[in-house]
C-alpha cells in the first residue's frame, strides 16, 4: 500500500510540478527588485511580533513580578447582581424605614435603571444571624455558606461606575465598560501562562439559562493574542463543540489533517509574520490534545457519590453545581483561571421568580450549597491555599423598592445600585473570617474602606504575584493594563 501523502505535501508537489524556469523568470522580475530594495532598506519582520505570538509551550515559563500567594483563580460571577441586603449586609435600621418614602437626599443627582419618582424604602427580606467564630452576619438564604465564613474575606464596600448589567460586567471583568479590552482571565494567563499543556489556561463555564448580558466579551482576549481568550465548556453534550471525531474519522487521520493544516500555516507565518498565525497553529495543536484531555476532565460521572451529594450535582445537566465541581476538576489539572457565570440574580420584583422573598431564596439554594462545597472541597484537597475563589455580582441593589413604571408591584424587588455591593473571596492568600468596609445604616454608601472595581482587580493581580501598574500590553499605540489608569492594591485583604 502506498504511503498516504498529506494535503500539504500534495499541494506543494503539484505546485512545484507546475513551475518551470520560464515561470520563474517571467514572474519574478519585479519581485526580485523589490526583494533587493527591501533588503537594502533594512525592512525585516519586526522582532516584537514573535514575542507576542509565543507558542503554548513557551508560556509555561512565565514568571510573576514577586512571589505569588495564589497560583490559580476561580471567579464565580453572579450575573444580574445579587442583593447584598438579603445576603451579606445586615441593616436593622432599614427594617424600621420599610414602606416609608425615600428621602430626597438619596435621589438627587442619581441615575437608576428603573426607579422613577419617589420610591419607598424596603426593609431586608431575610433573617440574619452571626456565624462562625468571626460572627460575620449572614442571612438564612445561605445556610451552607454560614459554615465557611471563617475561611472567607467579605468586602462590603465594593463600588462601580456603571449601573447597567453589560457595561458593569465588562468593567468588572475587563477593566473598561466598553468592548475591546482583554478580560481578567486573559490577562492572568497572558502573564503567567498555563500549568497544563493539554488544557487551555483560561476556561469558562456558564449556567442559569443565559450567557451574561455583556456576551462573550467578558471572557474575550481583546487585543491580546487570541490564544489567551477564555474557552467556554458546556456541561451537557460535547463539553467543547466538535471536540469528538466525526464518524468515519479516526485519531490518526485527524492528526494528519491537523499536521497538514499546521504546515500550511507555518508557511503562511514565514511569509507574512502575523502572530495570529502562530496562535492558530497552537490552537490546532491544543484542540487535538483536548480531544482526550477535555472529555476526561469534564466527565463528572467518575466522582464518588458523596461528592455529588456535597455539591448537589447531577451528571449530564447544566447547572451551577456541576460547574463548581468542574471548576475544581479543572483547577486540579492546573488550569490557571476558571470563570463561572451564573445568570438570574436580577431581582427587580416584577415576577415571583424575581422577588427577594421567594425567587431569591429559591435561586440561592443550589448556589449556596455548591459554592460552599467548592470551598470545602478545595480545602480538603489542599488546593485552597493556592487557589483564590472570588464570588460576587457586577453591582449591588438599592435599599429602595423598585417601582418600575411608577407603580407598586406585588413582589419585592430592588433596582441596580453602584455605590455599595459585596464580594467575598476565599483562599489564595486572603484573610479568613474578615470583613472589610462598612456601609451606612441603610447600605446605600460605603463609609469606610471603599473598594473600587479597579482596586479589586489590582488586588487580585497582586495575589497572583503581579504589579498591576507594570503589567501592561502595547496595543493601538499605547500601553494598556487591566486597571486602566487607577486601582490601588488593598493590602488589608491579605493574610
Amino acid at each position: 500500500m502506498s504511503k498516504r501523502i498529506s494535503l500539504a505535501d500534495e499541494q506543494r508537489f503539484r505546485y512545484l510540478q507546475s513551475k518551470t524556469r520560464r515561470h520563474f523568470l517571467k514572474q519574478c522580475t519585479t519581485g526580485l527588485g523589490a526583494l533587493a530594495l527591501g533588503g537594502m532598506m533594512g525592512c525585516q519582520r519586526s522582532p516584537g511580533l514573535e514575542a507576542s505570538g509565543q507558542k503554548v509551550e513557551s508560556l509555561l515559563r512565565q514568571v510573576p513580578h514577586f512571589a505569588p500567594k495564589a497560583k490559580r483563580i476561580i471567579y464565580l460571577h453572579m450575573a444580574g447582581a445579587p442583593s447584598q441586603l438579603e445576603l451579606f449586609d445586615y441593616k436593622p435600621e432599614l427594617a424600621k424605614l420599610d414602606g416609608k418614602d425615600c428621602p430626597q437626599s438619596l435621589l438627587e443627582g442619581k441615575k437608576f435603571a428603573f426607579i422613577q419618582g419617589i420610591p419607598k424604602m424596603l426593609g431586608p427580606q431575610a433573617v440574619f444571624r452571626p456565624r462562625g467564630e468571626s460572627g460575620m452576619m449572614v442571612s438564612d438564604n445561605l445556610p451552607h455558606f454560614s459554615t465557611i465564613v471563617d475561611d472567607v474575606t467579605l468586602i462590603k464596600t465594593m463600588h462601580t461606575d456603571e449601573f447597567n448589567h453589560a457595561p458593569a460586567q465588562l468593567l468588572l471583568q475587563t477593566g473598561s465598560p466598553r468592548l475591546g479590552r482583554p478580560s481578567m482571565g486573559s490577562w492572568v494567563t497572558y502573564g503567567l501562562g498555563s500549568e497544563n499543556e493539554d488544557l487551555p489556561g483560561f476556561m469558562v463555564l456558564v449556567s442559569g439559562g443565559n450567557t451574561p448580558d455583556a456576551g462573550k466579551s467578558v471572557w474575550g482576549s481583546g487585543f491580546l493574542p487570541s490564544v489567551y481568550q477564555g474557552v467556554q465548556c458546556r456541561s451537557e453534550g460535547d463539553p467543547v463543540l466538535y471536540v469528538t471525531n466525526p464518524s468515519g474519522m479516526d485519531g490518526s487521520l485527524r492528526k494528519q489533517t491537523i499536521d497538514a493544516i499546521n504546515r500550511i500555516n507555518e508557511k503562511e507565518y514565514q511569509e507574512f509574520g502575523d502572530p495570529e498565525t502562530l496562535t492558530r497553529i497552537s490552537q490546532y495543536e491544543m484542540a487535538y490534545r483536548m480531544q482526550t484531555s477535555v472529555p476526561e476532565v469534564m466527565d463528572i460521572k467518575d466522582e464518588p457519590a458523596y461528592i455529588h451529594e456535597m455539591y448537589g450535582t447531577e451528571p449530564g445537566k447544566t447547572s451551577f453545581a456541576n460547574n463548581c465541581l468542574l471548576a475544581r476538576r479543572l483547577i486540579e489539572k492546573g488550569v490557571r483561571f476558571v470563570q463561572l457565570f451564573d445568570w438570574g440574580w436580577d431581582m427587580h420584583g416584577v415576577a415571583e421568580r424575581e422577588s427577594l422573598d421567594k425567587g431569591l431564596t429559591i435561586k440561592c439554594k443550589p448556589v449556596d450549597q455548591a459554592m460552599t462545597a467548592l470551598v470545602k472541597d478545595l480545602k480538603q484537597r489542599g488546593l485552597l491555599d493556592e487557589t483564590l475563589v472570588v464570588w460576587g455580582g457586577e453591582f449591588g441593589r438599592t435599599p429602595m423598592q423598585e417601582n418600575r413604571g411608577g407603580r407598586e408591584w406585588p413582589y419585592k424587588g430592588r433596582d441596580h445600585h453602584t455605590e455599595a455591593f459585596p464580594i467575598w473571596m476565599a483562599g489564595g492568600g486572603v484573610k479568613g473570617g474578615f470583613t472589610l468596609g462598612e456601609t451606612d445604616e441603610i447600605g446605600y454608601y460605603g463609609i469606610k474602606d471603599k473598594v473600587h472595581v479597579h482596586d479589586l482587580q489590582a488586588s487580585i493581580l497582586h495575589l497572583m504575584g503581579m504589579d498591576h501598574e507594570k503589567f501592561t500590553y502595547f496595543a493601538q499605540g499605547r500601553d494598556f493594563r487591566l486597571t486602566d489608569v487607577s486601582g490601588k492594591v488593598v493590602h488589608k485583604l491579605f493574610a
Partner: protein
Amino acid sequence: MEQSSDIIIFFGRFHPLFLHLPIGFLALGFLMEFMSRREKFSYLKPAIGFVLGLGALSALLTAILGLMLAQAGDYGEELLFIHQWSGILLVLFAFGTWWLYGQKEKKASLKINRAYLGSFSLMMVFLAVAGHYGGSLTHGANYLTQYLPNGIKQLAGMPVEEKGPKLIENLDEAVVYTDIIHPIMEIRCNSCHNASKKKGDLQMHTREALLKGGENGPIFLAGNATESEMIKRIHLDPNHDDHMPPKGKSQLTDEQVLLLEWWINEGAPFDKKVAELKADQEVQSVLLTLADPNANKSAVEILLAEGTTAPDQEKLRAYAEKGISVKALSNDSNWLQVTLYKKDSVDQVLEKLAVDFPEQITWLDAKDTPLTDAGLAAVGKMKNLTRLRVEKTRISDAGLAHLARLEYLESLNLYGTEVSDAGLEHLAGLPNLRRLYAWETGISKEAVAEFIATGGKVDINLGYEVNVIDSLNVEVKPVAVNN
C-alpha cells in the same frame, strides 16, 4: 475683603514663576560685565545696560508679587523677614546699578566706575541671599544638604541623620508622641508645616504648634479620630484638593494612619508611654513592627524575604530542555518552584534536583506522580522547602522520616496517600509546619488530636463531612430579626 485677598494671593503665586527672570538677567549682566573686559568679548559692553534694565524691572515685578504671596501667611516669619528685605535691597541696588551704568556711559570717571562696580557686587550678594532664603522657604531649610554624603556632613560638622526609620528599643517605655507620632509627622507633614513654612497657617513641628492648629482651627479632637480634621483629610479621595499629604507627595501608609488615629483616640497625650495606653490587637501588631520590622512575620516569610543564592543558569536550562518544570518563584528572587508530572521519572529527577538546587527549591509539587519514599529522601535534602505537595503518590510512613529536618516546611499535602498515624509522628519536630492535608489517608482523628495537644501549631485537615441543609425550610420572615 475675602475677594480681594484671594486675588492678591492668586497673583502672589506667580512669584515662584517670575523670580527666575531677575536671577537670570542679573547674573547674565554680571557675567557680561566681566567678560567684556577682554578684547575678544568687548562687543558685549553696549548690551549690559539693556540686560541690567531688564533685570531691575523684573526684580521689581518679582518683589511686588512676593509681597503679595507673603499675604497668604504660609511662611515662617524669621526666614521670610530675611528673604523679604534682601529681596527689596536687591531691587534697590539693581536700579542703582542700572542708573550708575548710564552715568558711566555718559562721562567716564573713576569715582562713578567704582560706585558702579561696588553697587553691582552688593547687588549680587543680595541676589544670592534672597535666592537662598527663598529656596529654604519653599523646600525646607535642609533641602540642599539632605542628601549630602554623611562623610562630608561629618567633615563640615553637621548632624548626621540615620538612614531609614529608627527602631524603638524598649517599646513599653517609648513615649507615644515623641517616639512614634512625631517621627511620622516629621517625614510626612513637616516639609510644609514647619518652623519656616506654615501652609494653611499650620505648623506641626512642636507640641504647641499642633495644639494651636491652622487657619481652620484645631486639627485634631482628642479622643475622637473620626471627627479630627487631620484624619478626615487623610481619608479624603487622593484627588480631592484638601487631601493630605497633597497629591504627589509621599503618602502615609495604612499603618501610619492607624497609629495616628490610635493616638488621637487615646486622647492625644504628649507624655504618655506606650504601656500606659490601651491598644487593640491591630494596633499592637503595628506597634511591634516599630521595634522589630519582622515582628509579625513567620520564620518562613523572613526566610523567603531574605532570599537565597542564584541557581546555576546552565543547569536550569538543561532541565527546561528536558521539559521539566523548574521555574523561578518570582522575578525578584532566586527561589525556585518545581512542578513534576506523571510522565517524569520523579524519583530520579528529584535526586538530581536535590544535588543541583539544594538551597533554591522552596515550592515542590509532585502530586499524582509515581513518587516513592526514595524520592522523598531526596526531598529531605532541599533544606529551604516551604511547600510540599505529594498528594496521591505512593509514599509511605517510612518516607516521611526523611522530611524531619525540613525546618521551614510550612505546608504539606499528604491527601490520598497510604501514610498513617505512624508517619505523622515523624512530623512532630517540624517547627514551622502550619498546614497539613491528610484527607483520605490512614491518619486518624485521635492521632491528630494528640499531635496538636503536644504543642503543634499546625492546622490538620481530615476532610469534611457532607452536611446538606435545606435552606427552603428555614423560616424566612419579612423583616430582619436579630437572633
